């Protein structure tokens, strides 16, 4: 198990080098020169030249790539737009991103899995019908729109939660108050897809022969559902959660915009708009690392859920 983990962690290195190279090539191909965009209407040829020299844009391709990679690894990579180190700019936002991603994951799992299981067990009941209706709505309505509705309801009308911004770490009262609405909004899509998947996966498993065996053994229905059916149904659900979690870290840009949430996603978009190459490079690489690590965690969870899976 440990050996497997080590191997997977080592795999991270070529993956990230590959990502960084592709990223760098894309940034090269994208039209737009950071110095000109940055200077905007104050642009003069001299100023452009000075900036290019300052950030080493006049060096050849491979030199710049290696320089950027080295500076990224040593933490010396400097953003053009923010005039600060990439690592500290991203670092400040990473907490906000992870807090938002994890809380919405927790909400989603707590709501979606029980809903999916109950809907499957009580197939064609009112509960099944209503919960799957909500799930369909949840998938169809974009999360940012749900976000706006939540703000209107909970901030403007009821005035329970603040409408936007980051209030501090999640364990402080202000931090939690600011975190709840965006996390709820972000979790809706995941709740919807996960509960639907749990339901159909449960229904598939419940047709299996070994459940018939369990029943004929005289096991209690509760044990059959929770121990035999649920654990087996959980594998595809977990895969789905893994993918969605990765999406939450990097793809919560719309939610971050609506809630003025200082996350890495929004930062990366800003960096692209300003052609801030070092910042694009740094923020996307860190997001990719998060993606890979969260997938690794999911893979390890498989073992816990299903003993038949082993990585040794």
């Amino acid at each position, binding site marked *: 198990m440990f050996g497997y983990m080590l191997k997977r962690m080592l795999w991270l290195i070529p993956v990230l080098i590959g990502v960084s190279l592709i990223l760098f090539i894309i940034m090269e191909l994208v039209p737009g020169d950071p110095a000109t965009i940055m200077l905007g209407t104050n642009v003069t040829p001299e*100023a452009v030249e000075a900036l290019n020299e300052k950030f080493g844009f006049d060096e050849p391709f491979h030199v710049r790539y290696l320089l950027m990679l080295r500076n990224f690894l040593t933490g010396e990579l400097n953003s053009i737009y*923010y005039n600060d180190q990439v690592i500290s700019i991203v670092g400040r936002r990473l907490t906000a991103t992870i807090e938002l991603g994890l809380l919405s994951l927790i909400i989603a799992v707590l709501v979606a899995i029980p809903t999916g299981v109950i809907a499957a067990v009580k197939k064609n009941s009112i509960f099944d019908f209503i919960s799957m209706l909500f799930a369909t709505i949840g998938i169809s309505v974009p999360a940012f729109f749900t976000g706006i509705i939540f703000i209107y309801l909970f*901030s403007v009308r009821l*005035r329970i939660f603040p409408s*936007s911004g980051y209030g501090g770490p999640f364990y402080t009262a202000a931090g939690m108050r600011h975190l709840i609405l965006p996390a709820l909004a972000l979790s809706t899509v995941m709740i919807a897809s996960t509960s639907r998947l749990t339901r159909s996966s449960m229904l598939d498993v419940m047709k299996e022969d070994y459940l018939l065996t369990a029943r004929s053994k005289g096991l209690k229905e509760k044990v059959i559902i929770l121990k035999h059916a649920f654990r087996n149904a959980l594998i595809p659900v977990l895969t789905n959660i893994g993918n969605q979690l990765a999406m939450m870290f990097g793809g919560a840009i719309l939610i971050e915009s609506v809630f003025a949430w200082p996350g890495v996603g929004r930062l990366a978009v800003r960096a692209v708009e300003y052609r801030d190459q070092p910042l694009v490079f740094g923020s996307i690489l860190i997001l990719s690392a998060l993606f890979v690590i969260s997938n690794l965690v999911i893979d390890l969870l498989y073992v816990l859920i299903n003993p038949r899976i082993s990585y040794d």
Partner: protein
Amino acid sequence: MQNKLVIFLLTAVLLISAFSAVQAANHERFVMGIEDEVSDLDPGNTIISVNERVASLIFDGLVQYGEDNRIVPGIAHDWTISEDGLEYVFELREGVLFHNGEELTAEDVVFSYERILDPDFGSGLKAKIEAVESVEALDDYTVKFTLSEPYAPLILGMTFGIASKSYAEEVGEENLGRNPMGAGPFKMEEWDAGNRIVLSAFEDYWRTEANLKEVIIRSIPESSTQAMELRSGGIDFGVNLDVGQLETFAEDEDFQVKSAAGAGINFAGFNFEMEPYNNREFREAVIQAVPFDQMIPQIFGLLGDRAYSMLPPTLWPDDSEYLAANLPQFDPEAASATFDRLKAEGVIENNFVAEVFVSNSRPDQVKVAEAMVTALNQAGLRAEVNAMEFGTMWDMLGRGEIGLFFLRFVSDPDPDYWLYRFFKSDGALNRAFYEDQEVDQWLDAARVTSIQEEREELYTNVLRKVLTEDIVFYPMAHSTQIYVMQDNVVGLEPGNSLLIPLVTPTANVYKE
């Protein structure tokens, strides 16, 4: 079991809501929502408007903008300009303190300007004071700027924020942008990047202590979120609301909506090196085909006024009457006759499609472009909109790959800033690739003379030539600056779009 869970959740929500004192309710705290994230507050390099606006609260310059954008004394109480316009001598006030308690002296002024002038520093502000050859401290309270050639708009460059030399040495010059410390009305307390900036009133501010003891600046890019923050009382002041939202605020008694012209000019431009755009008749017909007078008010609403000049209505010279009468007028029949003739003559090729390039981050301009394309097609010219990401468009413009484009531009209150860069043959923003000797001469002459009447006449000549004779650009709308505030905010008036005038020579904003 389930009931317990429900009770637990309800209690949690109630507990959390008990903390929900509305943030903006405090009378000494002022919360502002701005449209973008502040990235760098180094006064030597504040070239992005959000940065500029926040830096202006922390730093003071030698001179400042007063009412109607007139230059008024700041840290310098007086100044003299030599007759040949080559020497500017500023007398500083004594006893002006930086936020760390040290006195601001001539040495700090020299330091601040020499940084900007240093080519290795690469400051975007350098372009505005390019004419300065040297800056020297004559004594502790006297600074002399020597110019290589007369440059009438130089005084606007004297508004740049002054940083402390000893402080810069202490924290490291490259760290000034993240640790700003000046002699302005507010000092930096906390900077939670991407989220909020907290400033507090500087009690020893030389002018007068700010009424607002705490100013919180939050970046809220989404216009609808800003609107809801205003309604929920989360912010006192918002600055980037959409047309639709503005109207509901304007009708609401709990809010004040104030507007001022001059937040930028939206215009269409043509490329003089690309066919058929380099044909004057073609350009005239393109404008004639489109009912701008009808479209602009509908599309821009409260956010813009119909423009006939490249200069905002707050700036001189005001020649909009002449320009309005002499710009190409809406005449679709004439336009379609011209298009037919130009096609027959081969100026417009058979498969030609006029592409209107516009930045997709400017929804109002995109709407104008769409309406324009419809009108052009009706007049017999095939046209389509190409709404693209600004960085890409800007790059293509620089390489001369775009024939017809929409842009918005805003700058400091001197016509030189608005015209020289666009219409001078070697102007840094001459994206039309326009060359005209006469215009070049006028623009240069207006830099050298400081006699107001002469400058007005020269700029009038320039505008008439480029807008009505040569049709380089076609002005569409002046963006309006709109402040939406809670009704208890007193004394905050939009003026210069690059400032947030909380403490000015004439105002000291407070909450009732």
